[in-house]
Protein backbone atom coordinates (compact mmCIF):
# COMPACT_ATOMS: atom_id res chain seq x y z
CA UNK A 1 0.00 0.00 0.00
CA UNK A 2 1.86 3.01 -1.26
CA UNK A 3 1.41 6.66 -0.36
CA UNK A 4 -0.36 7.33 -3.67
CA UNK A 5 -3.01 4.73 -2.84
CA UNK A 6 -3.66 6.33 0.51
CA UNK A 7 -3.90 9.84 -0.98
CA UNK A 8 -6.32 8.54 -3.61
CA UNK A 9 -8.48 6.79 -1.04
CA UNK A 10 -8.64 9.90 1.12
CA UNK A 11 -9.64 12.01 -1.90
CA UNK A 12 -12.38 9.56 -2.91
CA UNK A 13 -13.65 9.51 0.65
CA UNK A 14 -13.72 13.31 0.73
CA UNK A 15 -15.53 13.35 -2.60
CA UNK A 16 -18.22 10.92 -1.49
CA UNK A 17 -18.62 12.91 1.72
CA UNK A 18 -19.31 16.03 -0.34
CA UNK A 19 -21.75 14.03 -2.48
CA UNK A 20 -23.57 13.12 0.70
CA UNK A 21 -23.65 16.75 1.81
CA UNK A 22 -24.98 17.71 -1.58
CA UNK A 23 -27.82 15.20 -1.36
CA UNK A 24 -28.53 16.34 2.20
CA UNK A 25 -28.72 19.94 1.03
CA UNK A 26 -31.22 18.92 -1.60
CA UNK A 27 -33.54 17.67 1.14
CA UNK A 28 -32.89 20.28 3.80
CA UNK A 29 -32.98 23.57 1.89
CA UNK A 30 -36.21 25.54 1.66
CA UNK A 31 -36.43 26.78 -1.95
CA UNK A 32 -35.10 26.11 -5.45
CA UNK A 33 -32.32 28.67 -5.25
CA UNK A 34 -30.91 27.45 -1.97
CA UNK A 35 -31.17 23.85 -3.12
CA UNK A 36 -29.27 24.63 -6.29
CA UNK A 37 -26.67 26.49 -4.29
CA UNK A 38 -25.95 23.59 -1.97
CA UNK A 39 -26.29 20.75 -4.44
CA UNK A 40 -24.31 22.06 -7.42
CA UNK A 41 -21.34 23.40 -5.53
CA UNK A 42 -20.72 20.41 -3.34
CA UNK A 43 -21.50 17.95 -6.14
CA UNK A 44 -18.87 19.62 -8.33
CA UNK A 45 -16.31 19.49 -5.57
CA UNK A 46 -17.26 15.90 -4.75
CA UNK A 47 -16.87 14.87 -8.38
CA UNK A 48 -13.43 16.48 -8.54
CA UNK A 49 -12.37 14.64 -5.41
CA UNK A 50 -13.66 11.29 -6.61
CA UNK A 51 -12.25 11.64 -10.15
CA UNK A 52 -8.77 12.85 -9.27
CA UNK A 53 -8.74 10.48 -6.33
CA UNK A 54 -9.46 7.50 -8.58
CA UNK A 55 -6.66 8.59 -10.90
CA UNK A 56 -4.13 8.84 -8.09
CA UNK A 57 -5.42 5.67 -6.46
CA UNK A 58 -4.86 3.74 -9.69
CA UNK A 59 -1.31 5.09 -9.91
CA UNK A 60 -0.50 3.45 -6.60
CA UNK A 61 -1.67 0.00 -7.70
CA UNK A 62 0.36 -2.34 -9.88
CA UNK A 63 -2.07 -2.31 -12.84
CA UNK A 64 -2.37 1.48 -12.85
CA UNK A 65 -0.72 3.71 -15.39
CA UNK A 66 -0.51 7.45 -15.95
CA UNK A 67 -3.34 7.11 -18.50
CA UNK A 68 -5.81 6.79 -15.62
CA UNK A 69 -4.79 10.10 -14.11
CA UNK A 70 -4.78 11.84 -17.50
CA UNK A 71 -8.28 10.68 -18.33
CA UNK A 72 -9.72 11.50 -14.93
CA UNK A 73 -8.15 14.96 -14.99
CA UNK A 74 -9.64 15.63 -18.44
CA UNK A 75 -13.08 14.59 -17.17
CA UNK A 76 -12.60 16.65 -14.02
CA UNK A 77 -11.71 19.79 -15.98
CA UNK A 78 -14.72 19.25 -18.24
CA UNK A 79 -17.01 18.89 -15.23
CA UNK A 80 -15.43 21.92 -13.57
CA UNK A 81 -16.20 24.01 -16.66
CA UNK A 82 -19.69 22.73 -17.44
CA UNK A 83 -21.31 22.25 -14.04
CA UNK A 84 -21.40 25.93 -13.04
CA UNK A 85 -22.72 26.92 -16.47
CA UNK A 86 -25.57 24.44 -16.25
CA UNK A 87 -26.35 25.54 -12.70
CA UNK A 88 -26.40 29.14 -13.86
CA UNK A 89 -28.73 28.34 -16.75
CA UNK A 90 -31.08 26.36 -14.50
CA UNK A 91 -31.25 29.08 -11.85
CA UNK A 92 -31.82 31.78 -14.44
CA UNK A 93 -34.56 29.77 -16.12
CA UNK A 94 -36.16 29.16 -12.72
CA UNK A 95 -36.17 32.88 -11.94
CA UNK A 96 -37.51 33.82 -15.36
CA UNK A 97 -40.37 31.34 -15.08
CA UNK A 98 -41.38 33.08 -11.88
CA UNK A 99 -40.48 30.62 -9.15
CA UNK A 100 -40.71 32.61 -5.91
CA UNK A 101 -37.89 33.11 -3.46
CA UNK A 102 -38.08 31.61 0.00
CA UNK A 103 -40.28 33.73 2.27
CA UNK A 104 -37.27 34.32 4.53
CA UNK A 105 -35.35 36.05 1.74
CA UNK A 106 -34.76 39.70 2.47
CA UNK A 107 -33.48 41.25 -0.71
CA UNK A 108 -34.11 40.74 -4.44
CA UNK A 109 -31.83 43.12 -6.27
CA UNK A 110 -32.46 41.49 -9.64
CA UNK A 111 -36.18 42.26 -9.44
CA UNK A 112 -35.39 45.86 -8.53
CA UNK A 113 -33.02 46.02 -11.46
CA UNK A 114 -35.63 44.65 -13.85
CA UNK A 115 -38.24 47.10 -12.55
CA UNK A 116 -35.86 50.02 -12.88
CA UNK A 117 -35.06 48.93 -16.41
CA UNK A 118 -38.74 48.69 -17.32
CA UNK A 119 -39.30 52.17 -15.88
CA UNK A 120 -36.51 53.75 -17.92
CA UNK A 121 -37.85 52.07 -21.04
CA UNK A 122 -41.27 53.57 -20.40
CA UNK A 123 -39.65 56.95 -19.83
CA UNK A 124 -37.81 56.64 -23.10
CA UNK A 125 -40.98 56.04 -25.04
CA UNK A 126 -42.77 59.06 -23.71
Amino acid at each position, binding site marked *: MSALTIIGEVLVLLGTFFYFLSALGLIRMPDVYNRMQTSTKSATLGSLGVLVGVGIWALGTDYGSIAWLTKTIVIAV*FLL*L*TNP*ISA*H*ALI*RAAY*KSGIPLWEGSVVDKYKEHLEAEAKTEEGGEE
Partner: protein
Amino acid sequence: MVVKRALAIITLLVIGYWLAVGLSQVPFGEDKMLIGQYYLDNVKDQTGAVNAVTAVVVNYRGFDTLGEVTVLFIASTGVGALLWKRKKKRTAKTEGSIVLTTGTRLLFPFVMLFGAYIFIHGHLTPGGGFPGGATVATAFLLLYLAYIAYEIPHRGFEVTEGLAGMGYVTVGLIGLAIGGYFLFDWIWQTWQFGTDNIGRLLSGGFIPIIYTIIGIKVGTELSGIIDNMVKEEVSE
Protein backbone atom coordinates in the same frame (compact mmCIF):
# COMPACT_ATOMS: atom_id res chain seq x y z
CA MET B 1 -61.44 6.24 -14.88
CA VAL B 2 -60.56 4.19 -11.82
CA VAL B 3 -61.75 0.99 -13.52
CA LYS B 4 -59.69 1.80 -16.57
CA ARG B 5 -56.58 2.38 -14.50
CA ALA B 6 -57.11 -0.76 -12.43
CA LEU B 7 -57.60 -2.83 -15.57
CA ALA B 8 -54.41 -1.41 -17.06
CA ILE B 9 -52.43 -2.22 -13.90
CA ILE B 10 -53.82 -5.78 -13.79
CA THR B 11 -52.99 -6.35 -17.46
CA LEU B 12 -49.46 -5.03 -16.96
CA LEU B 13 -48.97 -7.26 -13.91
CA VAL B 14 -50.12 -10.31 -15.88
CA ILE B 15 -47.75 -9.46 -18.75
CA GLY B 16 -44.92 -8.81 -16.31
CA TYR B 17 -45.50 -12.13 -14.54
CA TRP B 18 -45.60 -13.90 -17.88
CA LEU B 19 -42.28 -12.36 -18.95
CA ALA B 20 -40.70 -13.13 -15.56
CA VAL B 21 -41.73 -16.78 -15.84
CA GLY B 22 -40.21 -16.93 -19.31
CA LEU B 23 -36.98 -15.26 -18.20
CA SER B 24 -36.64 -17.45 -15.11
CA GLN B 25 -35.74 -20.33 -17.42
CA VAL B 26 -32.71 -18.40 -18.72
CA PRO B 27 -29.60 -18.99 -16.63
CA PHE B 28 -27.58 -15.86 -15.98
CA GLY B 29 -23.83 -15.80 -15.55
CA GLU B 30 -23.34 -19.15 -17.25
CA ASP B 31 -21.47 -19.88 -20.41
CA LYS B 32 -24.23 -20.13 -22.97
CA MET B 33 -22.39 -18.75 -25.98
CA LEU B 34 -22.79 -20.63 -29.21
CA ILE B 35 -21.80 -18.09 -31.86
CA GLY B 36 -20.52 -15.50 -29.41
CA GLN B 37 -17.47 -17.59 -28.59
CA TYR B 38 -16.56 -17.64 -32.28
CA TYR B 39 -16.58 -13.85 -32.37
CA LEU B 40 -14.45 -13.58 -29.25
CA ASP B 41 -11.91 -16.09 -30.53
CA ASN B 42 -11.53 -14.74 -34.05
CA VAL B 43 -12.26 -11.04 -33.84
CA LYS B 44 -8.63 -9.92 -33.73
CA ASP B 45 -7.39 -12.09 -36.58
CA GLN B 46 -10.34 -11.58 -38.85
CA THR B 47 -11.03 -7.87 -38.40
CA GLY B 48 -8.08 -6.33 -36.58
CA ALA B 49 -10.38 -4.61 -34.12
CA VAL B 50 -9.86 -4.80 -30.37
CA ASN B 51 -13.43 -3.71 -29.71
CA ALA B 52 -15.48 -6.81 -30.45
CA VAL B 53 -18.79 -4.91 -30.48
CA THR B 54 -17.81 -2.58 -33.29
CA ALA B 55 -16.24 -5.48 -35.17
CA VAL B 56 -19.55 -7.35 -35.02
CA VAL B 57 -21.58 -4.27 -35.85
CA VAL B 58 -19.49 -3.08 -38.79
CA ASN B 59 -17.76 -6.20 -40.03
CA TYR B 60 -19.68 -9.40 -39.30
CA ARG B 61 -23.09 -7.76 -39.36
CA GLY B 62 -22.39 -4.72 -41.48
CA PHE B 63 -25.68 -5.01 -43.29
CA ASP B 64 -27.63 -4.19 -40.13
CA THR B 65 -25.59 -1.04 -39.63
CA LEU B 66 -26.33 0.03 -43.16
CA GLY B 67 -30.01 -0.52 -42.33
CA GLU B 68 -29.70 1.57 -39.18
CA VAL B 69 -28.08 4.40 -41.10
CA THR B 70 -30.94 4.17 -43.58
CA VAL B 71 -33.49 4.33 -40.74
CA LEU B 72 -31.85 7.50 -39.42
CA PHE B 73 -31.80 9.00 -42.88
CA ILE B 74 -35.49 8.23 -43.33
CA ALA B 75 -36.24 9.71 -39.90
CA SER B 76 -34.40 12.89 -40.85
CA THR B 77 -36.17 13.08 -44.18
CA GLY B 78 -39.51 12.36 -42.52
CA VAL B 79 -39.07 15.15 -40.00
CA GLY B 80 -38.08 17.44 -42.83
CA ALA B 81 -41.17 16.48 -44.81
CA LEU B 82 -43.57 16.74 -41.86
CA LEU B 83 -42.29 20.16 -40.79
CA TRP B 84 -41.97 21.56 -44.26
CA LYS B 85 -42.98 25.18 -44.58
CA ARG B 86 -42.64 27.63 -47.35
CA LYS B 87 -40.77 30.12 -45.28
CA LYS B 88 -39.46 29.46 -41.82
CA LYS B 89 -37.28 31.22 -39.36
CA ARG B 90 -36.03 30.85 -35.86
CA THR B 91 -38.42 32.78 -33.63
CA ALA B 92 -36.62 32.44 -30.31
CA LYS B 93 -36.78 35.69 -28.40
CA THR B 94 -34.36 35.47 -25.51
CA GLU B 95 -30.69 35.03 -26.09
CA GLY B 96 -28.91 32.87 -23.55
CA SER B 97 -27.20 34.80 -20.80
CA ILE B 98 -23.64 35.95 -21.31
CA VAL B 99 -22.33 33.08 -19.19
CA LEU B 100 -24.14 30.60 -21.39
CA THR B 101 -23.02 32.07 -24.70
CA THR B 102 -19.42 32.42 -23.61
CA GLY B 103 -19.42 28.93 -22.16
CA THR B 104 -20.88 27.55 -25.36
CA ARG B 105 -18.30 29.30 -27.47
CA LEU B 106 -15.60 27.87 -25.23
CA LEU B 107 -17.00 24.34 -25.10
CA PHE B 108 -18.12 23.88 -28.70
CA PRO B 109 -14.70 22.92 -30.12
CA PHE B 110 -14.06 20.55 -27.24
CA VAL B 111 -17.36 18.76 -27.73
CA MET B 112 -16.68 18.50 -31.47
CA LEU B 113 -13.19 17.17 -30.77
CA PHE B 114 -14.52 14.60 -28.35
CA GLY B 115 -17.19 13.48 -30.82
CA ALA B 116 -14.52 13.04 -33.49
CA TYR B 117 -12.38 11.15 -30.98
CA ILE B 118 -15.23 8.75 -30.27
CA PHE B 119 -15.97 7.87 -33.87
CA ILE B 120 -12.34 7.70 -35.00
CA HIS B 121 -11.44 5.32 -32.17
CA GLY B 122 -14.44 3.04 -32.70
CA HIS B 123 -12.26 -0.05 -33.15
CA LEU B 124 -10.29 0.57 -29.94
CA THR B 125 -12.56 2.12 -27.32
CA PRO B 126 -16.26 1.88 -26.51
CA GLY B 127 -18.39 4.00 -28.77
CA GLY B 128 -18.26 4.24 -32.51
CA GLY B 129 -20.05 6.16 -35.19
CA PHE B 130 -23.46 6.58 -33.59
CA PRO B 131 -22.38 7.92 -30.15
CA GLY B 132 -19.73 10.06 -31.82
CA GLY B 133 -22.24 11.47 -34.29
CA ALA B 134 -24.72 12.14 -31.48
CA THR B 135 -22.00 14.01 -29.58
CA VAL B 136 -21.26 16.16 -32.62
CA ALA B 137 -24.96 16.90 -32.95
CA THR B 138 -25.02 17.84 -29.27
CA ALA B 139 -22.44 20.50 -29.99
CA PHE B 140 -24.74 22.01 -32.61
CA LEU B 141 -27.72 21.72 -30.26
CA LEU B 142 -25.68 23.73 -27.74
CA LEU B 143 -25.23 26.48 -30.32
CA TYR B 144 -28.95 26.44 -31.11
CA LEU B 145 -29.83 26.75 -27.44
CA ALA B 146 -27.38 29.51 -26.61
CA TYR B 147 -27.83 31.81 -29.61
CA ILE B 148 -31.08 33.09 -31.07
CA ALA B 149 -29.77 33.62 -34.58
CA TYR B 150 -27.65 30.53 -35.09
CA GLU B 151 -28.42 28.29 -38.05
CA ILE B 152 -26.46 25.39 -39.45
CA PRO B 153 -25.19 25.87 -42.99
CA HIS B 154 -27.93 23.86 -44.69
CA ARG B 155 -26.57 23.37 -48.15
CA GLY B 156 -23.24 22.10 -46.87
CA PHE B 157 -24.77 19.86 -44.23
CA GLU B 158 -27.24 18.17 -46.55
CA VAL B 159 -24.58 17.55 -49.19
CA THR B 160 -22.19 16.17 -46.56
CA GLU B 161 -24.90 13.87 -45.25
CA GLY B 162 -25.60 12.47 -48.70
CA LEU B 163 -21.93 12.11 -49.53
CA ALA B 164 -21.29 10.25 -46.26
CA GLY B 165 -24.13 7.83 -46.98
CA MET B 166 -22.79 7.27 -50.47
CA GLY B 167 -19.30 6.76 -49.02
CA TYR B 168 -20.55 3.91 -46.85
CA VAL B 169 -22.18 2.17 -49.82
CA THR B 170 -19.08 2.83 -51.94
CA VAL B 171 -16.82 1.14 -49.38
CA GLY B 172 -19.21 -1.81 -49.43
CA LEU B 173 -19.27 -1.89 -53.23
CA ILE B 174 -15.46 -1.84 -53.44
CA GLY B 175 -15.57 -4.87 -51.15
CA LEU B 176 -18.03 -6.47 -53.53
CA ALA B 177 -15.67 -5.84 -56.44
CA ILE B 178 -12.56 -7.13 -54.64
CA GLY B 179 -13.75 -9.84 -52.31
CA GLY B 180 -16.95 -11.05 -53.86
CA TYR B 181 -19.54 -9.93 -51.31
CA PHE B 182 -21.02 -6.66 -50.14
CA LEU B 183 -19.16 -4.95 -47.25
CA PHE B 184 -16.14 -7.23 -47.63
CA ASP B 185 -13.31 -5.81 -45.50
CA TRP B 186 -10.84 -5.24 -48.34
CA ILE B 187 -8.45 -3.08 -46.32
CA TRP B 188 -7.84 -5.85 -43.82
CA GLN B 189 -8.32 -9.01 -45.85
CA THR B 190 -6.75 -7.97 -49.16
CA TRP B 191 -4.31 -5.20 -48.34
CA GLN B 192 -3.43 -6.60 -44.89
CA PHE B 193 -3.07 -2.99 -43.81
CA GLY B 194 -2.08 -2.62 -40.17
CA THR B 195 -1.78 -6.35 -39.53
CA ASP B 196 1.21 -5.92 -37.23
CA ASN B 197 -0.41 -2.91 -35.61
CA ILE B 198 -3.40 -4.39 -33.74
CA GLY B 199 -4.54 -2.26 -30.83
CA ARG B 200 -3.25 0.97 -32.32
CA LEU B 201 -4.97 3.67 -34.32
CA LEU B 202 -3.89 2.53 -37.80
CA SER B 203 -5.49 -0.89 -37.67
CA GLY B 204 -8.94 -2.36 -37.68
CA GLY B 205 -9.39 -2.67 -41.42
CA PHE B 206 -12.22 -0.49 -42.68
CA ILE B 207 -13.90 -0.04 -39.28
CA PRO B 208 -12.34 3.41 -38.58
CA ILE B 209 -13.19 4.55 -42.11
CA ILE B 210 -16.80 3.39 -41.94
CA TYR B 211 -17.21 4.79 -38.45
CA THR B 212 -15.84 8.16 -39.51
CA ILE B 213 -18.36 8.16 -42.35
CA ILE B 214 -21.19 7.13 -40.01
CA GLY B 215 -20.14 9.70 -37.42
CA ILE B 216 -20.24 12.51 -39.94
CA LYS B 217 -23.55 11.28 -41.30
CA VAL B 218 -25.24 10.89 -37.93
CA GLY B 219 -23.88 14.23 -36.73
CA THR B 220 -25.17 16.17 -39.71
CA GLU B 221 -28.47 14.27 -39.71
CA LEU B 222 -29.33 14.89 -36.07
CA SER B 223 -28.29 18.54 -36.43
CA GLY B 224 -30.68 18.78 -39.36
CA ILE B 225 -33.50 17.27 -37.29
CA ILE B 226 -32.83 19.78 -34.50
CA ASP B 227 -32.81 22.57 -37.05
CA ASN B 228 -36.15 21.47 -38.48
CA MET B 229 -37.74 21.23 -35.06
CA VAL B 230 -36.74 24.59 -33.62
CA LYS B 231 -37.97 26.61 -36.57
CA GLU B 232 -41.39 28.12 -36.92
CA GLU B 233 -43.35 29.31 -39.85
CA VAL B 234 -43.32 33.02 -40.55
CA SER B 235 -46.11 34.70 -42.43
CA GLU B 236 -45.03 36.75 -45.37
